[in-house]
């Protein structure tokens, strides 16, 4: 019975990730798109942990950790490019 709560939470997070995709599509500035991608990355990380609990596959938590690191590196790289015009 308690697993249905996790399934409902994962479905709600997927719906809100699709709603956040609107700002990535029609943001006026590039910083809007970076903020939207950062938000979607956080939601996907939480969803991966919930799916690991739902299908009882413990190794998916490592996937969530790697996905959080990749989202952070993406955000920092694009913000550095927006600020300086080059990466290094």
């Amino acid at each position, binding site marked *: *019975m*308690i697993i249905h*709560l*996790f399934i*409902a*939470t994962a479905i*709600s*997070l997927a719906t*809100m990730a699709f*709603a*956040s995709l*609107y*700002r990535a599509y029609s943001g*006026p*500035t590039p*910083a*809007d798109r*970076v*903020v*939207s991608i*950062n*938000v979607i990355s*956080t*939601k996907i*990380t*939480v969803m991966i*942990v*919930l799916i690991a*609990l739902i299908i009882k596959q*413990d190794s998916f*938590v*490592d996937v*969530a*950790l790697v996905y*959080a*690191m990749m989202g*952070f590196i993406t*955000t*920092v790289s694009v*913000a*550095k490019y*927006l*600020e300086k015009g080059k990466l290094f």
Partner: protein
Amino acid sequence: MEIFRTILVGLLLAGGIFFFLVGTVGLIRLPDVFTRMHATTKADTLGAGFIFLASILYRGFDAVSLKILVVLIFIWITNPTAAHIIAKAEFKKEGKSFEEISRKD
């Protein structure tokens, strides 16, 4: 004892969904880059904390819940850092004073 844990996990999950929903509405509805960032960063960090605490409470204390705690601490460190970097890049790119930027749109 089991029904008590179910109710506590349900309350934590509902709080997480509520804060994620507040962050999404702020991202779509607010008029400026800085206000959108102000809405999403804090609400998403708190919502992720609620949902991960519910997951830890559901699993009990073992190695997997310790890994979930590591993911939670990583998100708590990196999410405000990313927002700070985006805000600094946008603020330097505009080249205007703060009042001119905040009155855009």
